């Protein structure tokens, strides 16, 4: 298999094209711009559409239109741009459109900076837009997964008629690593709900408006049922050395890479430390964390945020085991040693 050395951001577009995505609408923002730039280079070559929209608001709405027709289409941005897209995301969730978007998180709030943060967890995983909706959220931690999970995002979005997000960060987007290209998707699902400008689809309607409260309640209940089915079937996570772990580290994206180094260092020092890395942030691997509570003494959650995912860990454990938390913000990324020190402290406390 040939290996290509690419940025995570470029890998996203390779995955998208292999997944049959043929339209990209976006607006430049660091550190996500290479996604749009790769799309600009590649989409026209495969007969697809690339358009630099006038804003993130326009971009998500162009995707809304494109996806309404049954086309696989996407957009990508970074935190401030995702804030702008929230209205469109809510509409897509309400209209059950399989929109795919990528958020390469940067420092906030406000203009913040362009360094990596994970402070969009709440606005993406909990839904920053209005209404009772959920997005399928995938969290890659290497260039290969930027490609693979983008492909998976299209698959899951179509499978459930639900928007899916690849939630990543400035480092994972900018970092270059070898990837192997997966097989292309050759058979796209049929979408009999789409507005395809054909006699067969001329009664189809894409809308999120239900004027009668009872109708809207029914629609909401149906959505909640769908979310329950997704929670049942689509939780994904990656574990390393949790079997005999006294302490289990939890982190996603770039943090999980650092945590892997921390685990290696801890193991080399004879400490029983393991790692759980959620690959889906929604649905969240809460059940697995609860299970691990039976065999481990405690957890240490590490985030590049004020503590957002840690809430989901605490909810899952419901006080069953101590949950420690370590974070950096503003684009500061801790190194292996810094977290290792925390691990030693927490281990001492757990034994204390």
């Amino acid at each position, binding site marked *: 298999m040939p*290996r290509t050395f690419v940025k995570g951001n470029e890998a996203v577009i390779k995955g998208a094209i292999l997944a049959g995505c043929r339209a990209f609408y976006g607006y430049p923002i660091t550190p996500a711009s290479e996604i749009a730039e790769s799309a600009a280079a590649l989409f*026209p070559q495969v007969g697809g*559409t690339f358009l630099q929209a006038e804003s993130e608001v326009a971009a998500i709405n*162009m995707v809304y239109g494109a996806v309404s027709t049954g086309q696989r289409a996407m957009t990508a941005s970074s935190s401030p741009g995702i804030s702008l897209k929230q209205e469109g995301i809510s509409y897509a969730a309400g209209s059950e459109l399989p929109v795919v978007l990528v958020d390469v998180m940067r420092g906030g709030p406000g203009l913040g900076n362009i360094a990596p943060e994970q402070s969009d967890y709440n606005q993406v995983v909990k839904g920053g837009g209005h209404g009772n909706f959920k997005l399928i959220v995938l969290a890659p931690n290497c260039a290969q997964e930027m490609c693979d999970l983008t492909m998976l995002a299209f698959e899951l979005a179509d499978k459930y008629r639900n928007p899916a997000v690849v939630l990543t960060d400035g480092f994972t987007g900018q970092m270059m690593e070898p990837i192997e290209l997966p097989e292309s998707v050759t058979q796209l699902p049929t979408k009999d709900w789409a*507005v395809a400008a054909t006699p067969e689809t001329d009664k*189809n309607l*894409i*809308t999120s408006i239900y004027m009668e409260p009872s109708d809207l309640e029914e629609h909401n209940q149906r959505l909640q049922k769908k979310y329950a089915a997704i929670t049942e079937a689509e939780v994904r996570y990656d574990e390393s050395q949790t079997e005999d772990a006294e302490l289990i580290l939890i982190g996603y994206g770039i943090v999980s890479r650092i945590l892997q*180094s921390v685990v290696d260092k801890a193991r080399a020092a004879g400490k029983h430390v393991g790692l759980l890395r959620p690959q889906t942030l929604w649905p969240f691997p809460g059940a697995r964390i609860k299970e691990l509570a039976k065999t481990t003494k405690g957890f240490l959650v590490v985030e590049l945020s004020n503590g957002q995912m840690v809430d989901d860990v605490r909810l899952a454990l419901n006080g069953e085991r101590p949950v420690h938390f370590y974070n950096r913000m503003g684009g500061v990324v801790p190194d292996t040693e810094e977290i290792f020190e925390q691990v030693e402290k927490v281990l001492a406390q757990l034994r204390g």
Partner: protein
Amino acid sequence: MAKDILQKPDSLYDEFTRKPGSDPLTTHYCPGCGHGVVHKLIAEAMDDMGIRERTVFVSPVGCSVFGYYYFNCGNVQSPHGRAPAVATGIKRALPHSIVLSYQGDGDLAAIGGNNILQAANRGENITVIFVNNAIYGMTGAQMAPTTLIGQKTTTTPTGRSAENEGYPIRVCELLATLEAPVYIERVAISDSKHVMKARKAIRRGIQNQIDGKGFSFIEVLAACPTGWKMDPVDAVHWVNDVLMEHFPLGKVKDKNGDAPTRDLVAAAAKAQVNGQKVREIVGDSNGFSEHLSPPKTPTNYQSPRVKIAGFGGQGVLLLGQLLAQSAMVSDLFSTWLPSYGPEMRGGTANCHVIVSDKRIGSPLVSETDVLIALNLPSLEKFERDVRPGGVILVNSSLIERDVQRQDVEVVRVPVTELANELGQPKVANVIMLGAYIGYTKLLSEQSVLAAVGKVVKRKEFMEINRKALTCGMDYVRDQVDVGREAELAS
């Protein structure tokens, strides 16, 4: 052609079953509302032009949000003001479709102002129907961007004032300043004479789309008796006597004759690419199939965490990429992490490269095994991060001072001068890479050349890069530490 005025066109449903309530035969619009008439004109055009089945009606947020109650075709309901963006996505996905983007004045000229401007400016091949009733109907008669000076609304209770709210926007005239739109006309539906003109304008706007001519825009002055607090008859008079005064009827832009006819369907079909070709485009052909074995590397230099730093323009990032790619070609794991964004504009650049025989966790380099400093600020900034026993490669052309650390190996290579001697200042970075792999035996010359080959496409550049690499390797062999050679070879 024209149907009996009482008969519903096929493009409107006979019964409005999507409308909640017990009366599926009447619309939800108020008596005297302009929307119903405009709907009918559009539907008749769809019938007569034979496009119903391939029409997509994009409804806005406003009183016409329920366009899908009525239009017997594919419907997409869009967020407030975004219909032109939604229509763009639809039309580009379905070049054969006829996309009708329908908006009120608040939707189009206020919240969606930029979206219509940009869609018009791109010359999107869509037809926009803009219903201007000088007020926000749906939300209860608030001011719109088109509300006239002095006009009372619930948010301008004493009448719109230019001082506070500015002037009513003439959207047709505004859009007509753009290059791309082919056809922009303002019409009214206040009496049968005006309706005939409106009917013609709508058909022309649709025909333009069928012919692939580009962006057409029809503004329709319409009554909102409820919002205006008038009875329907007075409302018609107000359109004729007052509204038209500020919004003159007629063609504001018309380059139909000049606009070329385009077959968007054929163009899209021609652009389609399939199967293996897609893979090639996406990058398989750019991939490396080589598996070169690395030389025997002394333990101290194995699996290094490398930091490379210098001025922007010294090829710092590329040096790192070549190093990491050469490692990939040699079946080692590697990561490359750059400093990115505006930081680089300040003139400094650095990147972290890790090469390892195991899967790499953190791609960050803090404790550094190898520092490659191409200028003095880089040495000053990162010297202290190098681990005891690590290596610092120094560009001695630009760094005169000695490395202060006594517990590291120092390799001084005048790469700027050597590059100048080769006649190509740009290859200083490749000379340094040569020095690095020459000194540490981390990777083979062939692996670097394979990496360079993917980056450098032109033959003559390939040659100079090959020379640069050899130059760096020779330099460390001949100059740096001849004694060490013997040790390495053993």
